[in-house]
């Protein structure tokens, strides 16, 4: 069964095992590390600042999102476990 990310996120949220991703623009230094680690979840705007395009990423990206948070030199990525 193929469902879109947002729905997956909502289902995961209900099941209590999804994650919620945010990027603090005050801290972001536009290194692009998150985008190169998991382009399906992060993107950069014209000022270089990163955002999570998938706030509730699919389960399959979970480990990569944690890797991106670790790779971020500015510790700007925050992950909440739902």
């Amino acid at each position, binding site marked *: 069964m193929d469902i879109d990310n947002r729905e997956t996120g909502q289902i995961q949220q209900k099941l209590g095992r999804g994650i919620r991703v945010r990027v603090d623009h005050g801290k972001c*230094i536009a290194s692009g590390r998150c985008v190169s680690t998991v382009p399906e979840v992060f993107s950069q705007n014209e000022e270089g600042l990163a955002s999570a395009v998938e706030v509730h990423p699919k389960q399959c990206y979970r480990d990569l999102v944690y890797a991106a948070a670790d790779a971020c030199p500015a510790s700007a990525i925050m992950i909440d476990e739902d």
Partner: protein
Amino acid sequence: MNVDFFSREIANDPYPILEEIRARGPIVWNDLMKSWMVTSDALCRKIMLGFSKFTLENTIGEQMFGLDAIICIKDKPRHDKLRAVWAVAFQRSTLERRLGPMILACAERLLAPLEERLRAGEVVEVFRKFCRDLPAYVIAEMLGMPADMRKSIVEWSDAMAEEASAAGDPLAHQYIASQNAKAAFAQYLEEQIRDRRGRPGDDLISQLVISEAAKTMTDGEIMQNCRQLLFAGNETTARWLSNSIVVLARHPDVRRHVIEDPSRLPAVLEEIMRWDPNVQADPRMTKGESIELGGVELHDGQHIYLMIGAANRDPARHERPAEFDIHRQQKGHLGFGFGLHNCLGQSLARLEAAITIGHFLKKCPTYELAGEIDYAASFLVRGPQTVPIALG
């Protein structure tokens, strides 16, 4: 305006001059240096993001590191491919796991003999034998250098740093010393590169030598990148360490606060980096079509200095910017750069600073400054280079 970047005055205390520049505008011509000075945080960020229009060509950066060093590469795919080789080694979890205990052991070993002398009532200079050596030893270990090479690494990279004080004069003794040091570095590193190719280990030179990126690189290009890494990995951090010791001595309430609660240390160190960064002026040169910046028209081939110390105190970004405030809600500063060429080693620098200063405060909680703090005539990469202390 005429501002001499090579004067002792600006190295000792750049902030009055930086505020004078800011008062004249976000981008101001320096007739003495024949370059623009940018004091605005927003403009500095814009320039750092525009890496193909604002390059390191013909700047002190290119002179020091060479055309093929990653800091000078403006082709993004090529840059990213090379940076990816070392990215994992420089991320927080890898560093904490692999290097944390080694950094602490190194701090203990370097401080122990100084502690003894301090306890005996002596005044001890802590830059050269403690702050200076620690990051050099750590980066040398990461590159898989034998212990007996550490002394040469410190000497060579110190001589390279002097180039930033030579004011572009090819006859200046600092310039000549730097060229000699770079040649010695190059020769040694090229031997190491050939050696690792035959028997790669898990050090940073081996990681690069066996990488996909290295397949299209000459030994000279690989060498320039290893040399940049060695240099960048120790000169700046050494000055962050010595500056932290000076700032904490001058703010005894902050020091007490950190000693009572060591978990506050990283935030304090970060505020030191914002308030008084070690890279004070970051060079660029414009390339290509003219561009408007802060109300000024810049033409091809013009030199620019990003005044990081000024940008980090830009009132448009930071509240009460001149105030050293460890409780402030930290908004990103430019002490480690921004965008494509942001500092690869910033997580390493933070880990080294937290472990080293933490250990120093534990062992010498009552230290006091005991003589004149000297910044030499080093403004571009700035920090106290003579730090005499005594136990209070």
